[in-house]
């Protein structure tokens, strides 16, 4: 028979396999990138064959897909949405805008580096990334999950103060409910 360690290892493998193959994406269309999702989901590229599915609410979702630029106003909602998701949860930054501001690099109201505000697990480069790129991003995330490296939620929890400080810097009137574990 197994000892405890081996048993928990096997349980972990099963859990990670299930998590990896069942990614429910909360459809928060923040920017123009949202338009790339319909072709990703429908018959041409069919992301569902990897177990990727849209979910209607953050409570049910695993992946927060930031599709494009984030204005400060949207960032507030996205942070809220992220905090309402249940662990384990992953963030995918989608498009150059989330990486370095993209074409909004000099905008007065758009944040330029998403990973300062939310723990990003995978970035998908491009303006716009094609559906192939999106799927490759998801597959990268699946790899990270199966290796146990997709620990964004853990990072967020451990460095909450740093994230909060950055968030508060851009969101001036901070009226967010506290994130309690």
């Amino acid at each position, binding site marked *: 028979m197994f000892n405890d360690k081996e048993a928990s290892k096997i349980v972990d493998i099963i859990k990670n396999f299930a998590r990896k193959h069942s990614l429910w994406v909360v459809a928060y269309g923040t920017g123009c990138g949202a338009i790339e999702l319909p072709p990703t989901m*429908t*018959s041409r590229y069919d992301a569902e064959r990897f177990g990727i599915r849209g979910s*209607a*609410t953050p409570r*049910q979702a695993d992946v927060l897909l930031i599709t494009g630029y984030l204005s400060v106003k949207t960032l507030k909602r996205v942070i809220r949405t992220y905090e309402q998701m*249940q*662990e384990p949860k992953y963030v995918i930054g989608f498009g150059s805008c989330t990486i370095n501001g993209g074409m909004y690099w000099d905008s007065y109201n758009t944040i330029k580096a998403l990973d300062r505000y939310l723990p990003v697990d995978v970035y998908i480069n491009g303006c716009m990334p094609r559906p192939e790129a999106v799927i490759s991003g998801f597959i990268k995330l699946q790899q990270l999950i199966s290796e146990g490296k997709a620990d964004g939620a853990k990072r967020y929890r451990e460095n909450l103060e740093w994230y909060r400080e950055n968030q508060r810097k851009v969101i001036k009137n901070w009226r967010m409910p506290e994130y309690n574990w």
Partner: protein
Amino acid sequence: MEINWSAVLGIVFTPVIAFLVGVTYGGLTRRITARIQNRFGPPFYQNILDIIKLYSKESNINHGVMQHLGPVFAITASVTTLFFIPVIKDSPVFTNFSFNGDLIFLLYIMVFGSLGMALGAGQTGNPNSAIGVSRGLSQLVGYEVPFVMALVAIMVQFQTTSLNDLLAVQDHFTKWIIFQSPFAFLAAILAFLGMMGYAPFDVVIAPAEIASGPPSEFGGKYLGLMLTSRSIFTFAKLVLFTDIFLGGAHDFITLIIKTFILYMIPVLTGIVFPRFRTEQSIRFFWSWPLFFGILAILVVVF
């Protein structure tokens, strides 16, 4: 005290089998939908992965004790329904408690779960949940009426309210109730479409409008339990319909074939149809299905 081991076996294995069959059917539905939409589709075991993933979520939230218990109500209803239906005809293992209940009991225990879920969804305080519940209950009133008419017609025709008696009547395939009382079958199968909640009657959980409706605040283990319950309930309903109309089954292969054929009716309807508004679906249930129901009763009476 003497323990009836075959009964214990049945009690333990019936829910497990029901879950596995139901969840596989769910996965196959997604696959079939995908193929019809010219997609490849997820593997057939996708729903199992989803449920395992939901159970393995590390954090869970609830808005209070009613939301905590909502999925419990749902699974209680599913499993109880299953226990009071003879899954395999004349089998000592899979008869379970079917001699202690009858059709009217089944009618009521089937709504027990929806009501419990509705209470759970109500406590979340999410307006989308409440809208979904309002739609769901309204639709329930719609499809229960033709369904009851069909059942009344059958009960009157065979002078029994017991499912086992109905099974005993259908000892040869020419005596299946689908042939003996076709109008009742029509009324019931149209009501069945509403009961399964696929399109065009999926306004309750319309994901794009009301964020999946009643379960919109449920995540993690709660959603997992709900999906488990839904899988079991799907199978229970299919077995119930098979027992009533298609003469039940003596072995699992027959059961799988019959239930799968029945299951394809709402699934295939669902793929090709858009969505009804609530009042449209109620009016639909109170038009043709009601007509068939009245016809079924009239045929029996005269």
